[in-house]
């Protein structure tokens, strides 16, 4: 069937190429590429990538979950809900370069919000913070992580039945009891699952970071892209493949945990 031929060529073969080429250099099998991952540059990028992804995933998950709950209390067919979900769909999915531009236009040296802050006397001494991975990039990543959380988490929040709250109240429970003993235990697996998805999303994001950071290569995707432009250096391309393999390994671990959690959380929520 054409489907299998096609996916083999454009999905399976690339994956195999990454895995195999990570262990090959100039036609001979070697561990050199993988060993090259031990250099300080890559390890820093990896550490920063993981910290950035984890931080934005956690913050995004908490804020996104609160927003999802707030939206879920609105009328199901109302304008508010459609508006918020559509906006979130765009920001979570479509963004990339445009989101980076939005932040440069707002927080850059000439930006609108920078001007407001200056007027309020709270302007930072320079606007370079915007281009640093643990400040500006983190903020921009939140700009697509929170919307993603809303989209992923909304079905779970909507799975909470009003009857459960009523049952709690009939049995004499307060709002706090309801959240602590009923809603949170039910939502917890979905929440953790969604957080993991946010992590992989941030971890593999490239466009936003590329448009924002032009000097250094503080994150793994940027380093991989860097090996493309400097292919003249001998063996660089295959080091890129080893880096790609490292990314796949991280994502695979996260996804494995996610699949396991998803099985547990779908027990309670009829989707």
């Amino acid at each position, binding site marked *: 069937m054409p489907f299998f031929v096609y996916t083999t060529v454009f999905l399976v073969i*690339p994956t195999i190429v990454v895995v195999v080429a990570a262990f090959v250099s100039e036609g001979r099998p070697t561990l050199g590429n993988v060993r090259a991952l031990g250099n300080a540059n890559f390890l820093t990028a990896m550490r920063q990538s993981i910290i950035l992804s984890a931080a934005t995933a956690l913050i995004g998950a908490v804020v996104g979950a609160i927003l999802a709950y707030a939206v879920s209390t609105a009328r199901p067919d109302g304008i508010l809900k459609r508006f918020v979900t559509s906006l979130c769909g765009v920001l979570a999915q*479509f963004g990339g370069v*445009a989101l980076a531009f939005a932040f440069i*236009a707002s927080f850059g040296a000439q930006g609108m919000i920078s001007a407001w802050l200056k007027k309020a006397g709270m302007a930072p001494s320079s606007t370079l913070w915007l281009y640093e991975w643990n400040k500006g990039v983190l903020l921009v990543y939140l700009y697509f992580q929170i919307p993603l959380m809303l989209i992923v988490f909304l079905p779970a929040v909507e799975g909470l039945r009003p009857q459960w709250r009523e049952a709690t109240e009939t049995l004499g429970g307060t709002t706090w009891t309801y959240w602590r003993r009923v809603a949170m235990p039910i939502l917890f697996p979905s929440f953790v699952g969604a957080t993991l998805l946010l992590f992989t999303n941030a971890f*593999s994001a490239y466009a936003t970071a590329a448009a924002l950071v032009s000097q250094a290569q503080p994150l793994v995707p940027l380093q991989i892209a860097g090996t493309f432009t400097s292919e003249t250096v001998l063996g660089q391309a295959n080091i890129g493949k080893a880096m790609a393999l490292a990314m796949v390994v991280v994502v695979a671990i996260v996804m494995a945990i996610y699949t396991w959690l998803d099985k547990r959380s779908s027990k309670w929520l009829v989707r």
Partner: protein
Amino acid sequence: MSQRAAFRRKQTLFRWVTVTAVLAFFVLPLLGMLDFTTKVRRGGRTLATWRTLSHVSEISTRYPALKEGFLASLGLCVITVVLMLALLVPTMTWVRLRLPGLSRTVEFICLLPLTVPAIVLVVGLVPVYAWVFYLFNESTLWLALAYVVLVLPYAYRALDAGLRAIDVKTLSEAARSLGASWFTVMWRIVLPNLRTAVLSASFLSVALVLGEFTIANLFSRRNLQVAMYQLGKSDAKISVAVGLVSLVFAFVVLFAMSFVGSGRGGRRARRAAAPAIPAASPAAAAAKES
């Protein structure tokens, strides 16, 4: 009763405070874009950037790269959608009818791109594309082959929901027993019944292709996003304006799509469309898996 009412009021207040706060965070940078494109150096406002943008001929002469990227993106959209439908609809129908044992495999393959970061896909695609460019030509449009893989998970989710809502087996058996060929079954029975699902799968694919940057940039091909990115270095205003337009356009498409399901299509259409809208994100598509 009054306790209930008080609870309602509190909930409404909480909803508006939260939504307003978060929306402010979402909308402020977009306003920043608008502000940036209309500003002149010593205070004051100008619409010059927008005037330029609304003149098609002026754009194509002053920013040929932008025109080239835009046209390339449009072409990529069309090819990706056609290829995706040609690949997925017959396969998924066939698997549903004849090879239900394979459905897990197909689903796994379709959702696989969610776990492989685009940048990793690029790394792996280098040798494949070396052949493509060598055998054919260096046209940007060949990127559509890779984009089909990118949109697989979203398209799969949308089409799967559509197929679930109709009784493919009865329909195709009825058509077959009336003497229709398999092609006729596909073209005149399955496809029309799936139109809502096909529509939402296509919209998602278009949105995704218009927003694609990673693969095009790393293969040094120029699509809309890459053109925007490159232009950002020389003429920031116009590229920020294009960015804003693209975001607003995508929002309008998604917002309109959220009404498609609840229109006159009836219950079946709603059931087919409902899962497709959260599927606007990869994670939602995966989260829907049960």
